[in-house]
């Protein structure tokens, strides 16, 4: 059965536990990560003539890995078929032995999920913890989240919990139909709202 992720944006505190658990479990080097947490902020402070400070500031976090998209941009462009979508689980992963290292998947993915690791000579990315999933377990990031902001399961089950695919800073879901269902916090914005900004660009890019 096809799997999907659920992200409860109203619960996420941006603690990065999912990211660290993933790095630890997959033994990633210091400069590699399969999951990133975007800190999104908007609004401003102002002071009136009486010296009273008011603000419209908002902050929320978006924890994101590969979305194992229904219509993946990465597999469409991969010349060798190294980037594959499992027909059963829907999880998208790289076969390092088949990868040419052309970087087309890196260019095509609108979520920045794959990266070309020149030390191993092929692309690396979140594989949805496919080995754990095969054992009937949930991905390590999901299990690690102390706020239970992440979940993973049958697509219909996740869909029933998520309201929308679209949340800033992610691109429109129309491009790849991500298998990611989101419960938005009241402060979250969608479709690249002009007054939102990524507060931690040095960390995520």
């Amino acid at each position, binding site marked *: 059965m096809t799997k999907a992720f659920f992200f409860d944006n109203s619960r996420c505190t941006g603690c990065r536990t999912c990211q660290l658990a993933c790095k630890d479990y997959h033994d990633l080097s210091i400069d590699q990560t399969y999951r990133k947490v975007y800190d999104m902020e908007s609004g401003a402070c102002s002071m009136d003539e009486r010296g009273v400070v008011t603000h419209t500031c908002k902050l929320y976090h978006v924890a994101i890995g590969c979305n194992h998209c229904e219509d993946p941009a990465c597999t*469409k462009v991969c010349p060798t078929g190294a980037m594959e979508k499992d027909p059963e689980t829907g999880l998208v992963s790289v076969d390092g032995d088949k990868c*040419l290292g052309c970087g087309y998947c890196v*260019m095509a993915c609108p979520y*920045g999920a794959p990266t070309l690791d020149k030390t191993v*000579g092929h692309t690396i990315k979140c594989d949805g913890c496919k080995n754990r999933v095969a054992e009937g377990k949930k991905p390590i990031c999901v299990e690690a989240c102390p706020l239970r902001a992440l979940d993973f399961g049958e697509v219909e089950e996740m869909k029933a919990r998520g309201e929308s695919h679209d949340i800033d800073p992610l691109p429109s879901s129309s491009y*790849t139909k991500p298998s990611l269902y989101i419960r938005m916090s009241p402060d979250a914005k969608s479709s690249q709202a002009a007054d939102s900004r*990524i507060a931690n660009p040095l960390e995520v*890019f």
Partner: protein
Amino acid sequence: MEALASHLPLILFTALCAIGAGAFLPMALRASVGGASPAKPGYGKLAWVPVAVLAIGFVAVFFHVTVPLNAPLALGGIGRSPLSNEVAVGGAFLALCLLYAVLTTAGKLSANANKAFLWVLAASAVVFGLFMGLAYNIATIPAWSSSAASVAMVALTLLGGCALGWLIVGLAGKSETTPKSVGYILLAVAVVSLVAAAIASGAESGIVAALPSFVHDTAAIAAEANGFIAGFTLCGILGVVCLAASIVKPSASRIASILSLAFVTAAIVLARCAFYLMEVGVAF
């Protein structure tokens, strides 16, 4: 600039393959118009010049990938991956060019067979140019997936081909006996290609400038690309002027065609730099 450095093998691949492939158009045109000695209908060893330019382009592309030995696996993606389609069409084209070079060097082609083969190569060059453009048909990178990218690549193939092909015609000692009409046709093709490539590249930079982004200053990227497009246009104009001089003034033909090729090559490299700078996705 960092992006350009990482794309250098692709810049060289697309520029050299465009120039090498397109060269068969002037060669075909000359073979069809103006008569040729039946004993020496082809271009002899000079047929290896465009093949060598293409081959260098193909070698360059191997510096872009990390595991070149997996290259044959790319054929598995034909019909699905635009890159596989490009590799297949490019590989077939190179094989055809090699066959032509071998046959013509060995003197195995009659005048008619030579003519027909050259036209097949000229038509295939346009198809290869199109597939080089389509290789970047990545829906999540708007400027690259626009039809302008393919129009520009075909136009660069024709522009580069006119410059190299005309030089080969000259080196084969055929320019003096070439009717002026052939030269004028090539000049028209070069001018139209230059204008088309400039307009198409400008359209791509317009797409980039209009993209919303959380991280990229898309207006600044478009402005930087426009600088390269302006450089392309200037070098392209100089290349076309030299081409015109070599056609109109047979006494200055050789030097003018060499200069034309130099300017056009620089122009095409600049156009490809602009293209790779415009790799701005819909993400973030």
